[in-house]
Each structure stands twice: as C-alpha cells, then as structure tokens.
C-alpha cells in the first residue's frame, strides 16, 4: 500500500515538477521574446511612436529630418581632420592627377598639383539617409558640405608659356554623396562600393582662381579652361548616374552590374526652331544646335545663316546610360565672330520618353537651366525635335559598350599621337555614324598658333571647348563668368566626320 501510494505520489510530484519547469520555460521564453520585440520597436522609433510614448513630455531636442543629423560624427571628424588632411593628400594627388590629364582641355599641355593641403576647416556632414532601393544593396546618401580653406596650387603648363602656378582658393563643395554598398555573404559583407554625387540637388563646387606671381591673363581663357575641366570631371565622372566603383575585399567580384552601361539609343532629329532671339547688330542670328547627354559625347548641327526660324532637319544617334536620371540637353548658339552666343538652352528628361515610340516634341528655350539665375523672362523661342528611344537588348548593349570603349581608346591614341589635344575632342564621332559635324574649333592655343582671344578658325587641336562651355551649369560662380576667348567660330570641318583634322 505504502509502495503504491509512494509511487503515485512520486509520479504526481515528478509530473508536477516537469509541468512547472515547462511553464517556467514558456514564461521566460515569452519574456525574452517580448523584450526582443520591445528593443526592436524602440530601435526604430519614429515621430508618432515617440508622441505616443512621451505624450505631452515630448523632448524638444528631438527632430526627425529626412537626412538624419550626425552631430557626433561631425565632432569626431573635426577632431580627426588634421590627420585625415595629412593622410589624404597623397591619395588625392594619385587619384585626381590622372583624371585631370584625361579631361584636360587642349589648350593646356600639363596640369599637376604642385601643392595640395586640405586646410584647417573640416567638412561637415549635414545628414545621412540610409535606404535600400534594391535587393542586396544599401544606398546611403550623405549631405556633405565643405567650405574649406585648402591650399591647392595647380602647376599648369600651356604651349608657349612656362608653367604657371594657379591657386584654387575659397573652395566650397555642397553636394549629396550617394554611396551604394553591394552586399555579399562573405566577410566583410560588402563586395563593392559605388560612389557618386547626386544630380538632384545639383552639386555646387565653387572656388576662385588666382595666379601666383602673375596674372591669370597670361594664358587667356585659362580660368575658363580650368572651370570646364572641373565641371566636366564632376558631371561626367561623379554625378549620378555616373559613378565610381570600388571593389572591396580580396575576393574578385563581378562589378559589371554596378557600372554604368549603355542602356538605350536615342534617334534624334533636330527639325527646326522658331522665334529665336536676334543677337546680332546687323542681320539676324546664325543659329546652330549642340545636343548631348554626356558632355564627352556631343553632336552639333550645321549653321543656318541669317535666320531666326531655322530648319535643320538633321538626325543624330545618342547613347543613353540611365533613362531615369539623364536628360537630353539642347543648346542653340549664334555663330559669331569672337565668341558664339547662346540663344537658349532646353532640357528634355529621358524619363518622359516611351521606348520605341517616335515622338515629336516642342521645347521652350531658356536662358539658363538654373531657374534661379534667370533674370529676363523674355521668350526665347522654341525648338522642335523628333525623338525615338530604343532600349538595348543584351547584345546591342554589349556592342554599344564595345563601341564606346573603342572610341575612347582611339581618342586616347590620337591624343598621344598629338593629333587632338584632349580626350574631350572629336565630339560627335560617337554613337552617330551620321557625321555629326564636330568642327568646333577652339582657342587654338593648344595648336600653338598663339592667336589668343580668338583662335579664328584655328586649325589643330580644335578643342571642343566651346561645346563644353555651353554645358556649364554647375557652379553659381563660374557660370556667371564670361569667357573672353573661347571661340567656336568656325564650323569649317562641319560634317567633316569625326576628327577635326
């Protein structure tokens, strides 16, 4: 009797113990999970959550801007800055000098840093925004502002003139830097980093140039040339959708997806323009149009003399890399003795186009793309175009990529051979077999002709300066400057094929 009751009692106790334990387990497990949930919730509080928690005691120091403030990072940065400035000098020199070489205008034979120090003022990060726009990628936008006091001295050599030191002063950089991290399963989890400057809002890079021990006028047009170089580097290398891809980690990864590739082809007919502004004292304007998506690849129509309602009816082909963000820029110029005057500029975002549908569009010409700078609201006429956008398939894309590479390669060779002065030349050869006339002959400085100020029909390196010139719009300060020199006067080589020689 004792045995059985003992066993029974024992069993009940045992089961009860186990039941208690299991209950305890559940309780603790639930508690932990609840805590995990709490922590997770509190980790990403937004304004409404906080209102709900704090009620009337909402802390006043808290705000929720789109770009989250990073005061602590700025504090650290300002402390670290003297050391970073020291360390970065060599790196900047190494990476920027080849760029300067690639994009330098024809009038300049060499452009190098002779002194580079980043100064005492650290940059400021106004805010950071993190989002994931695509599976496996993290997009980080950094609102970056730097009004620094760097001491940058460029040693510039131009034909006929000895090296002159040019100082870049009062540098100001306001931009949003987009950094995209490509994620991977291997440590350190990031296989590549893509860096670009967001095009909206437009990057602002301001500076003043000063010649040391001389005057900027020693080489006419020099400051404009430097401005152009900087502008082109920024827009064509850094500004979204253009980007720099940096692979990270020992494992070689395929970054081709991240790089910018030709995405489609634009078949564009510049039909005519109406009611252009008359810029000439005698007679009427002699208009022509320059069209581009990237400033490296520009095309140009022929000049219609003495006409404010010109008809060109010329067809070009242009390559688009990113339909979403890129725009087609039209600039109408008046050919003139001396510097050509811009009659107006128009922009057509590619986003508005439908694939494989031909579209006729009339665009209003503006004095400038930057709406803030437009003073006179006078009508500048319209331009009529016909566009057909075609999305590349894989093979076409590959073909286009190869073509582009080949053309750049050729230009490089030509440059080395001294035929053209800069990679920026030979506009129009690209993407358009239709002999879009290039013939923009520049200051002729590079050609050694030495006719400064108005390289009238200067042969030779015929830099596309004029063309680039029109594309200027980055800096508030620089675009207000007038180039006294660049003279896209002559379209002698118009329709003469690719190379100006």
């Amino acid at each position, binding site marked *: 009797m004792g045995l059985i009751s003992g066993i029974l009692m024992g069993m009940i106790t045992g089961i*009860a113990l*186990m039941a208690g334990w299991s209950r305890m387990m559940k309780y603790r497990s639930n508690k932990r999970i609840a805590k995990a949930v709490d922590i997770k919730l509190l980790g990403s509080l937004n304004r409404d959550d906080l209102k709900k*928690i704090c009620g009337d005691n909402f802390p006043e120091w808290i705000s929720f801007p789109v770009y989250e403030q990073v005061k602590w990072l700025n*504090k650290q940065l300002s402390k670290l800055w003297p050391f970073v400035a020291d360390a970065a000098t060599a790196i900047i020199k190494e990476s920027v000098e080849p760029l300067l070489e690639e994009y330098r205008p024809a009038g300049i034979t060499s452009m190098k840093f002779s002194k580079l120090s980043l100064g005492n003022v650290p940059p400021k990060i106004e805010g950071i925004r993190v989002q994931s726009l695509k599976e496996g990628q993290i997009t980080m936008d950094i609102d970056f502002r730097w009004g620094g006091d760097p001491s940058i001295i460029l040693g510039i050599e131009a034909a006929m003139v000895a090296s002159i030191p040019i100082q870049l002063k009062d540098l100001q950089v306001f931009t949003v830097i987009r950094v995209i991290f490509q994620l*991977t399963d291997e440590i350190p989890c990031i296989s590549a980093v893509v860096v670009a400057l967001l095009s909206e809002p437009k990057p602002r890079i301001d500076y003043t140039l000063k010649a040391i021990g001389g005057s900027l006028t020693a080489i006419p047009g020099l400051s404009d040339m430097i401005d152009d170089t900087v502008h082109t580097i920024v827009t064509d290398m850094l500004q979204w959708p253009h980007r720099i891809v940096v692979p990270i980690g020992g494992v070689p990864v395929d970054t081709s997806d991240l790089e910018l590739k030709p995405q489609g082809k634009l078949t564009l007919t510049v039909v005519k323009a109406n009611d252009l502004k008359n810029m000439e004292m005698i007679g009427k304007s002699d208009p022509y149009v320059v069209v581009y998506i990237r400033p490296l690849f520009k095309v140009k129509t022929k000049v219609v003399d003495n006409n404010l309602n010109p008809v060109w009816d010329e067809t070009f082909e242009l390559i688009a890399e990113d339909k979403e963000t890129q725009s087609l820029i039209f600039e109408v110029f008046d050919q003139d003795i001396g510097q050509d005057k811009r009659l107006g500029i128009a922009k057509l975002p590619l986003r508005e186009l439908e694939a494989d549908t031909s579209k006729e569009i009339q665009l209003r010409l503006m004095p400038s793309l930057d709406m803030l700078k437009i003073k006179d609201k006078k009508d500048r006429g319209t331009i009529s175009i016909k566009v057909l956008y075609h999305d590349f398939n894989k093979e076409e894309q590959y073909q286009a990529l190869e073509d582009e590479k080949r053309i750049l390669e050729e230009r490089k060779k030509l440059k080395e051979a001294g035929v053209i002065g800069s990679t920026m030349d030979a506009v129009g050869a690209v993407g358009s077999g239709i002999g879009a006339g290039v013939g923009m002959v520049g200051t002729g400085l590079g050609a050694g002709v030495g006719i400064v100020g108005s390289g009238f029909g200067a042969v030779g390196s015929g830099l596309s300066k004029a063309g680039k010139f029109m594309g200027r719009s980055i800096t508030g300060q620089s675009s207000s400057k007038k180039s006294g020199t660049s003279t896209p006067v002559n379209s002698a080589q118009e329709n003469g094929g690719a190379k100006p020689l």
Partner: protein
Amino acid sequence: MGIVSTVLGFSGFGVGVSAGLVIGYYLFIFFQPTDVKDPVIRPLVEQDTKSLQRLLPEIPLWVKNPDYDRVDWLNKFLEYMWPYLDKAICKTAKNIAKPIIAEQIPKYKIESVEFETLTLGSLPPTFHGMKVYVTDEKELIMEPAFKWAGNPNVTVAVKAYGLKATVQVVDLQVFASPRITLKPLVPSIPCFANIFVSLMDKPHVDFGLKLLGADLMSIPGVYRFVQELIKDQVANMYLWPKTLEVPVMDPAKAMKRPVGILHVKVLRAMKLKKKDLMGASDPYVKLKLTEDKLPSKKTVVKHKNLNPEWNQDFNIVVKDPESQALELIVYDWEQVGKHDKMGMNVVSLKELTADEPKELTLDLLKNMNPNDPVNEKSRGQLVVELTYKPFKEEDMPKDFDESGEVEKAPEGTPSGGGMLVIIVHEAQDVEGKHHTNPFARILFRGEERKTKHVKKNRDPRWEEEFSFVLEEPPTNDRLHVEVLSSSSRIGILHPRESLGYIDISLADVVHNKRINEKFHLIDSKNGRIQIELQWRTS
C-alpha cells in the same frame, strides 16, 4: 510494519518521481517544437497602455538624454546588412569550429559533433544612441549604447554510443555600453593606431540554454547564477578601466618618425648635354627623398662645365627605408628664367644595405617612365655615393607617449631637477586688428622661444615642442605665453601686434607631471590656446 511501509513508501516515491519526471518530460517538453519562430512585431502605435508601460525602462538613451545622438541610419544600415552578415558570420563560425571539433572528438569517444542549425536570427543588433566625448588629447572617444535582443538559434548535436543529444542556445540578449577609444591619432589612413574597447557597465546577458529540449536557464536560481557568473567574468576582463586593445597599425611607423640617416655624396657628372645657347651648361644637382615635405637640397652650381665635380656631402633624414626613394635631378642654372632640367634618376632606398657605402653611376633620364622613347637619348651620367645609417635602438627617439605617462628626463639631468617640456599645440579664434599671422612666444626665466608663423589663420596649429633643463622644480615660476601676429608685408604700419597672452603657474605641473589644457587668452576676444606641459624627472 509501519517502518517497512514507510521505507517502501519512500522508495516508491523515489521511483515515482523519476517515472513522473520522465513522463512529464515527454508530456510537456519532448514533443514541444524546438524551432525558433520569428516574433510578431506590432507597430507601437497599436499597443495599449500596459505594454507601453513595459517599454518605458527600455526607452533609448537618445530620447532621454540630449547628449546622446540618434543613429537610426546606422540601425537601418545594420538591418539591411543583417541577413548577409548573419550568413557570413555563421559560415565563418562553422569553418573555424570544424577543424577544432575534428581534432577534439577522438579523445572523448564521441562519434560526431555538428551544428544542426546555426543562425543569428532575424533581429539585428541596434544602437540606442551614440555619445562622443571631446578631449584635448589626441584621441576619439565614443560610447554607443548597444542592445542586441535577437532570436538566434544555435543547435549542436552530439552523437555518442548511438545516442544523440542536442544543446540549443536560443534568444540571446546582450546589452552593453562599450566605450570605444581610438588613439593615438596619426597622419596616415585610417588615422588611428589602436582601438581600445572597454565596458562602462556590467553587461546584461540573457539566453535560453536547452539541453535535450529542456531550458536549463528556467530552473529557478540557475539563471541568476549563470548571469552573475558571466557578468563577473566579462567584467574582470573588460570593465573600465580594463580595456581590450586592438592594434591597427604600428604607431611609430604611422607617426613617420625618422629611423635613419642617408649620407649622400654627390661626386661628379659626366657627359652632360649642352643646354645653353652660348657656352656650356651650368649644372647643379637637387636631391630629395620622395614622400618628404622638407625642401630639397642643392649642390653648388658649376659654371660652364659639362663634366662637373662636386664632391659635396649631404645628410637626409629617412622615415621609411622600405618605400622612400632618393630623387636626383640635374638642373642647368640660368641667370634669368626657368632652370632647365637636364636629367634625373631615382634610387630606391631598399636597394641599399645598412651602414655600407655604395657608389652608383646613374644614367640621367628625361623622366622615370621606362617605356618613354625620349629616355633612349643619352643625357650623361651622375656618380653618387650613398650610405644608409639606420638609428641604433638606443638612439631611437623615445616612444611617443600618448598614454598620459610622462617620460623620464634624459641622462645628465641634475638630481632633484628635471626637464620642463612645453608643447604648444594649437590656438583657436585668435584675431588681430590688422593681420592674423599668429605665432606663439614663450617666456620662461628670461629665455624666449618662438614657434613658426602660421599665415592668415585664426585657428593656427603649431604642434611645437620646447624643453628646458632645470636644476630644481619650477614650483614658484610662471610661464608666459603670448600669441603674436606679425605683418606679412614689410612696413612701418602695424609691424607686430599681440593677439593675447596667458601666464601659467608651473606649480601644478610639478605636482601633476603632465597637464594638457586649453587656456583662455587674456586681452583677446575669444581666443584659446592649447598647451601641454610636462615635468620630467629622472
């Protein structure tokens, strides 16, 4: 009978308990699922007051304290990266564990040990605020509030004697407030030499440890015991002021301190090319180490000579013999205008053996590009003798002390006395009426020392060190530091003006050995100057 029945009763109870435990185990635990479910997260707005009440103690620090910054962007970043990080970490962990397990298994007659599941779960760690401290020392201090309440699931299955046992770790929670110090700061990427991590509080650790599916941690008392144990263990190792040190780079190398001297004897040059229109060239040689900011050294000019003999000696300080190289450029001197380059060559210091003179005959080149066809033309030759003398260990400059400890005074310091070291770091917001080209002037016992001038800068950095050897401690002395500006133009008007001064009593330094502080300047609007004082005794 009574006794027998009691004994039977007890033994029956014993058997019953065991049986009951087994039945209970199968009933309540064994058949319970062991997998970890993702917790359901409801938005905060939907929750009721009661659950909000529960949340209150965990409110992030950035909500409570204005000196903590919100780091949502970092949390978001982590969140997006977490799935990848999870896979990567688990993969690495498995790879590391495998060989260790394989090595250990035979000793214990265990058939296999393997990870049945290994995942860190879906919840990433979060930072509930970030605080930084700004000090006058060369260091960065930050304190993130780290909270990870995750749902990882690590199951290890052990097989032995045909039986399988599993150990499972679930719901790991770690809350910690580490302090991360980066120091010393150095002028080469990544700009700091060491990372120090230490914990400001004992960390909170909680987890479920399931043996055969039963959570040991929920046995009353066990959890508290284990948690205390872990806390104490971790605290023993890393609780402030104990730190975990992670060296990133060698500070000595990063500081780019000199490690040796290069003796260069420029002997002669042969068959130089004529550059001048009239007469022969007037050659001289410029020497420079690459990656060096010092001005280059020059030989004398040998006029009208295409085979000049210089026989001049130079000593150049070497900072990194591995990467630095000596650059020799022969120029043609001109009375007027730019000096023409006649040729150049570069000798890498790696090619030299220490303390061994080496005579080199170098072909002069137009540039250092070996493929450039212009280099095929002969430009003459340059003969130099090079000796690289690395510093011996004993005469190496003493380690730069960043830890706050003061070095010993050098040999020969009188006993009872010592060396007073004054380091003028930087000044802020100094402004002159007419010009601001500040330099600091130090006056101590009638001796005057000056820093170099910084041009047109309201926040100059000097980083200059001065030392005075003294017979006895300067307990009653004062140090006069004045910031002055001198006009960059030579003129009678405002040649020099004072931007502010400060008198520092040295008694504190003798007492404390080291003081690093920002002082407000007198007779200055807002100016401050950072001065470090050290009293080194033998």
